[in-house]
């Protein structure tokens, strides 16, 4: 049975860190806050690993199936008997896997930040925000009901907002954090409505009950939900689609991805933790959590998910080829890889062999967390060294940053899908799942993985090769980051290199039964060959400084410009919001508010004021005047009573 104390402590320790450092950090822990946060998270990580070991190898497997356990169920908010919002801890393969990922990556980022942000003025604040984020992300992962997941969903949104805006004296960071918050909030509106529809039709908020009721065609709830329709789609379809919109917003799926590249304004370790490895995969996790509903009850929505994922993957990959800010390249790469996870879920079925996409998606989530966090932390080490985000300022850094160079290369090989690195295995599984279910998506994915290899190695060659720096530069620029920054890089590099060998299907599958993936070597030829072509193209274009890339860009002309400007999606949003919404709805509404609503209120106010100005004079303070009014009144009344109202 699950060890409730250990599991509950995993999210509570970072929360304690947040409260401690947030309340007293600036006063008492000016210098030690980093150590405190890291120690608490280390304890959390150990507990998460212990829980994972216990779950996967001791009690989790019952009769060959990994069971779902609800380790703790508390009534948090009771409206009336029977109607309440609970807080629970769910333990099943994906939540345990996510526990390990979140705590491990967060620990790496905590350690890394000790070096990266050394000497920052707001060091304790930074660590308290990290604690808040880790707590909310773990709460999201462990949520046992859909409302709890929503609460923590918003909490990670807030902590992401706070961390993107960490450099609050930089206007671009302030704009970026607002943008991220507003775009994800907009998507969360869909999520909330989806929750209301699903829980209303299911009659419960609890995941297990909800899934059970909404996936069996005999249950009353299912019949009612499938029968009530709106605009030609059933309530169930609407609910599931709206929940997915929330997931798409958080996971930066096209067309709600615009916030992610801008979110790179935050400190680089934050980008590694939140905008690469953990928070942005929350959408994937949400779809996986409700996967039985998607795949059994509303396959149409699942197909949409597949296409959204595939389109996001290829668009982001194309944009990534033209960006020059290394963090933005990584941001688009993240979006592309999350697209892979999404469409892997989209092409999956529930149960057995057909559930390969589900396993592949979770597997890719796991390996991606390793190598993408490594890429970001490596990019952080580079930025720390050259004090710039732009590729133009880099080049030939392999001699100056040897450890960063090797680990970055491993991560690039992993994401490019070169065997035997981690990305190869998970991407292969995804492609296999797509191949069996949807050929169109398979081709998109295949091309995308080729482009992925190209842009990653474009990044790699531009940072570490290309221009040769004079060796005298070494003296002026100083050393590579210290032990605190290098240790996470090495650990993550080990993960990125070896995580692929975990027999993931044994532990995580759509129905809990072990899934043995069949690897066909001949199937891997196409993606690996495409990947190598991508790498060689990047080698040819960027190994040495030359004018080939510029020539290529000029020959592509308009296409290059369109891609460089990210397909003008931001501009389209600006046009829609600024020109269309502001002019057609905002301005008229403002006019109405200013002139009609305010005018009415002003009219009432002015009339009252004028009247009272007149009445005020009556109260003069002259007693004799009062007596005259009184006398006059009495005479009038007397006349009335005597002559008129006889």
């Amino acid at each position, binding site marked *: 049975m699950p060890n409730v104390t250990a599991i509950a402590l995993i999210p509570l320790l970072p929360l304690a860190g947040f409260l401690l450092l947030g309340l007293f950090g600036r006063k008492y822990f000016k210098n030690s806050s980093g150590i405190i946060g890291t120690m608490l998270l280390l304890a959390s990580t150990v507990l998460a690993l212990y829980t994972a070991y216990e779950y996967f190898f001791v009690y989790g497997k019952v009769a060959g199936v990994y069971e779902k356990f609800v380790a703790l169920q508390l009534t948090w908010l009771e409206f009336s008997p029977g109607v309440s919002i609970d807080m629970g801890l769910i333990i099943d393969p994906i939540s345990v896997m996510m526990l390990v990922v979140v705590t491990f990556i967060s620990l790496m980022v905590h350690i890394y930040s000790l070096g990266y942000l050394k000497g920052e003025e707001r060091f304790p604040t930074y660590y308290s925000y990290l604690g808040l984020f880790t707590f909310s992300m773990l709460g999201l992962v462990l949520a046992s009901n859909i409302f709890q997941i929503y609460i923590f969903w918003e909490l990670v949104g807030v902590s992401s907002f706070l961390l993107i805006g960490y450099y609050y004296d930089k206007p671009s960071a302030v704009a970026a954090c607002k943008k991220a918050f507003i775009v994800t909030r907009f998507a969360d509106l869909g999520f909330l409505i989806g929750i209301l529809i699903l829980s209303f039709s299911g009659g419960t908020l609890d995941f297990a009950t909800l899934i059970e009721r909404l996936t069996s065609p005999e249950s009353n709830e299912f019949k009612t939900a499938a029968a009530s329709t709106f605009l030609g789609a059933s309530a169930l379809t609407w609910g599931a689609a709206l929940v997915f919109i929330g997931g798409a917003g958080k996971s930066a799926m096209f067309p709600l991805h615009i916030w992610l590249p801008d979110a790179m304004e935050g400190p680089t370790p934050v980008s590694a933790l939140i905008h690469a490895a953990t928070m942005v995969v929350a959408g994937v996790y949400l779809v996986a959590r409700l996967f039985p509903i998607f795949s059994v009850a509303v396959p149409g929505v699942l197909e949409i998910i597949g296409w959204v994922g595939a389109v996001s993957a290829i668009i982001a990959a194309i944009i990534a080829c033209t960006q020059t800010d290394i963090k933005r390249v990584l941001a688009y790469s993240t979006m592309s890889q999350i697209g892979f996870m999404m469409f892997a879920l989209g092409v999956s079925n529930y149960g057995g062999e057909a559930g390969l996409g589900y396993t592949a998606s979770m597997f890719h989530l796991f390996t991606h967390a390793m190598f993408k966090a490594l890429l970001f932390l490596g990019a952080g080490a580079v930025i720390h060294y050259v004090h710039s985000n732009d590729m133009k300022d880099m080049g030939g850094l392999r001699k100056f940053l040897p450890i960063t160079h090797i680990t970055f290369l491993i991560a690039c090989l992993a994401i490019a899908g070169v065997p035997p690195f981690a990305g190869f295995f998970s991407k292969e599984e995804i492609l296999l799942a797509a191949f069996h279910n949807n050929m169109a998506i398979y081709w998109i994915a295949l091309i995308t993985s080729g482009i992925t290899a190209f842009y990653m190695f474009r990044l790699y060659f531009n940072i570490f090769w290309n221009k040769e720096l004079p060796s005298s530069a070494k003296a002026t620029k100083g050393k590579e980051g210290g032990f605190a920054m290098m240790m996470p890089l090495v650990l993550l590099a080990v993960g990125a290199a070896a995580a692929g060998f975990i027999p993931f299907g044994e532990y995580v599958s759509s129905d809990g039964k072990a899934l043995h993936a069949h690897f066909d070597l001949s199937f891997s030829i196409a993606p690996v060959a495409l990947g190598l072509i991508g790498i060689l193209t990047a080698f040819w274009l960027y190994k040495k400084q030359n004018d080939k890339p510029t020539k290529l860009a000029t020959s592509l002309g308009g296409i290059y410009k369109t891609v460089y400007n990210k397909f003008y999606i931001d501009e389209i949003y600006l046009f829609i919001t600024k020109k269309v919404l502001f002019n057609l709805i905002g301005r008229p509404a403002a006019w109405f508010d200013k002139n009609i609503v305010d005018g009415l209120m002003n009219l009432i106010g002015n009339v009252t004021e004028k009247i009272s100005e007149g009445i005020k004079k009556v*109260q*003069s*303070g*002259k*007693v*004799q005047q009062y*007596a*005259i009014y009184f*006398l006059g009144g009495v005479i009038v009344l007397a006349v009335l009573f005597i002559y008129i109202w006889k």
Partner: protein
Amino acid sequence: MQPGLYHILFLSTALFFIGVYGFLTRRNLITMLMSIELILNSVNLNFIAFNKYLWPNQMDGLFFTLFIIAIAAAEAAVAIAIIINLYRSHNSIDVENAEDLKY
């Protein structure tokens, strides 16, 4: 000629309007108080007259009058106390100086 009801009513009405006139025109608070007493006494006269000429067998009007005299005495005491206090603070018993009491 025996005085009848109308004579007395004429007297009391005259008294009443003399009182009202005094109350409205005098500036001295003591004079105004005296005017009020005139008004009250005109009312008393009315009571007595009606009692005597319309219901001679009953004593209601008489008792009312006694009550009004008692209350008028109390009222005069209170009014004079107020006037004294006003004099202490404003150094005058002119009604126009008491206008600021409205604030």
